[in-house]
């Protein structure tokens, strides 16, 4: 039996379960906020073209618009200044085999519940590895915070006078994952791969800076990470093939052994 035949067999007999890690694209789902004088990403918007009516009698369809970084989305290396000159750094040029990879899910939900500004550290990762397994090369590291359970946009965005407060990795953790674990990328449940206050880290937005600088990827606004085992899941995350795209909304699926 070929590997794929084994896979199909496992799939059809219910031994492999699909977990949807994607938030629904809608105008209500919170988007990224930048200072108002800067260029702004389009939020997700949808306009009806026709709905079995005088605009098109037998069919229903919409036009939608959004920025590349809307909803559950993929960040390509070219998104950041540090990754701008790398080969194969955009959504159309990334080798497609990178869109499927194993996932290591680090449960930080207790820590994030206690502290919205929680920073994932190298020590935390080493301790996690001691309990579970060493993070394998070419894997997604997904930071589970249960942030996606904050259905209220106010709580999800979590702004105060000093800006956004959401968890993310610290500088050393990112450097460790890139340099010593050779990961495929880093994924989060909040609105960025970096913490809400990561502008104040050195360098600012370290996950963007080091991951993309090393040709690695980002996934953000993920959900259902609580349905994944710490190890053993496989993530399928293929962005739209936008020419020289810096990222794209996408459907992220995880395959889990049941």
């Amino acid at each position, binding site marked *: 039996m070929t590997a794929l035949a084994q896979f199909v067999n496992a799939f059809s007999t219910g031994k492999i379960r699909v977990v949807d890690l994607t938030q629904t694209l809608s*105008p209500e789902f919170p988007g990224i906020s930048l200072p108002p*004088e800067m*260029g*702004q990403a389009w*939020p997700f918007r949808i306009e009806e073209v026709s709905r079995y009516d005088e605009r098109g009698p037998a069919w229903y369809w919409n036009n939608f618009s959004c920025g590349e970084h809307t909803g559950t989305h993929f960040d390509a290396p070219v998104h950041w200044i540090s990754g701008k000159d790398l080969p194969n750094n955009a959504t159309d040029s990334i080798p497609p085999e990178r869109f499927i990879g194993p996932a290591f899910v680090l449960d930080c939900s207790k820590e994030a519940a206690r502290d919205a500004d929680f920073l994932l550290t190298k020590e935390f990762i080493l301790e996690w590895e001691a309990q579970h397994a060493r993070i394998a090369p070419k894997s997604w590291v997904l930071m589970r915070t249960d942030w996606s359970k904050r259905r209220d946009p*106010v709580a*999800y965005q979590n*702004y105060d006078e000093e800006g956004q407060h959401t968890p993310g990795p610290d500088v050393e953790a990112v450097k460790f994952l890139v340099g010593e674990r050779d990961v495929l990328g880093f994924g989060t449940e909040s609105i960025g791969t970096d913490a809400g206050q990561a502008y104040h880290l050195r360098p600012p937005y370290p996950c963007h800076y080091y991951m993309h600088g090393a040709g690695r990827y980002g996934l953000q606004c993920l959900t259902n990470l609580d349905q994944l085992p710490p190890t053993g899941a496989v993530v399928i995350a293929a962005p739209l093939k936008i020419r020289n795209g810096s990222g794209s909304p996408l459907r992220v699926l995880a395959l889990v052994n049941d």
Partner: protein
Amino acid sequence: MERPKRKNPVLRTRLPTLPPAARSRVALGLTAAAALGRFELQQCRDCGTVQYPPREACQKCLSILLDWKPQRETGELLAQTVLHHSNDLFFRERLPWRLGLVKLDCGPTLVSHLHGEIQDAPAKVRIRTMLDRAGQAVIVALPDKENADMADDRQLREFTCDPKHRKVLVTDGKTALGQALVKALAKAQCELIWVGHAEPWKKFAGFDELEKIPQVTLVALDVTDSKNVRELAAEIAGKVDIVVNNAEYHRSFGIANRQGVETARAEMDVNYFGLLRLAQDFGPAMRSRGADGRSSAVAWVNLLSIYALANFPPHGTFSASKAAAHSLAQCLRAEMRPAGVRVVNVFPGPIDDEWNQLLPPPKIAPAALAKAIVGALREGIEDVYPGDVAQEWLARWRDNPKALERELSA
């Protein structure tokens, strides 16, 4: 005026009717002045005679050189009558109706609508031209002396858009102007004020203060989101008597000092398409309530800009979006008029806000602009040019639009 009783919700809402609307082209001169809140009559350039009704040639010397000139707003009531019967559909539903013959201090004698507090003739009166529900100018006589409850007069309320006891939607409560508007409307005794705010996860300065105003209900409203506008309209449009669309997107760029189209597109999306979305979703329900008792649907206010008349190149793309909104507001005006709902366009000069930071004064203060908007509703004015800068631009534009274009691009 007591708060009108709530309408029995199972009774039919009467369809709006309009007073007689036909006017000759020359008579529209009266409407043009009334739209600005001015009282102007034709005056003969040769012999100085003031004319009424509007005409092609001087009634005294037959000169055709008749100019629209501001006139003294005073006169004397010679005789009055009360109409108890009319074949006109509009007046039939509003009887009895008080009319009188007024001798103007500037010359002509004319038939005028009479405010209820005017004493029987002979009596000193003040004269206004006001727009009626058909959008045409009519002559209205007011009592000689101003008093606080004057606006409550049943007949006068047919000509104004007084927010008192009405329900208002202010589309953006985040800006200083939005907050000043809400306060001014609350002071004008609105019954309810829905206040929109986009991106509700970002709490804005002044939020707590707004929430404390008893009439205020804050609602999530982003005019770039069709679904949001449609759903809010489904919820409240059947109750909204006045829309004040003050949502605007303003960045200070011309063509050459900003790459790309994204900022200009965002301006169009809020300033132009935002109005279109609101008009499509709130317009129909308001049109059906144009004659819904003493607190009917009555007005739609658009925050435009004096830059809608002529482009101000340092704010070039913003000017263009406001010109587009102005054009669309004229379409809205035509579509709302059959229901007697007035579209009020406001053309301020630079507002003293974040996006005019680098413009030197004079800039209109948000509170002054809010006061002008509420004042226009109470006075029944349709085109509002609030403040010195707007007035000066208007005068220059009326005098010579080409000259203004050159002056603004200097």
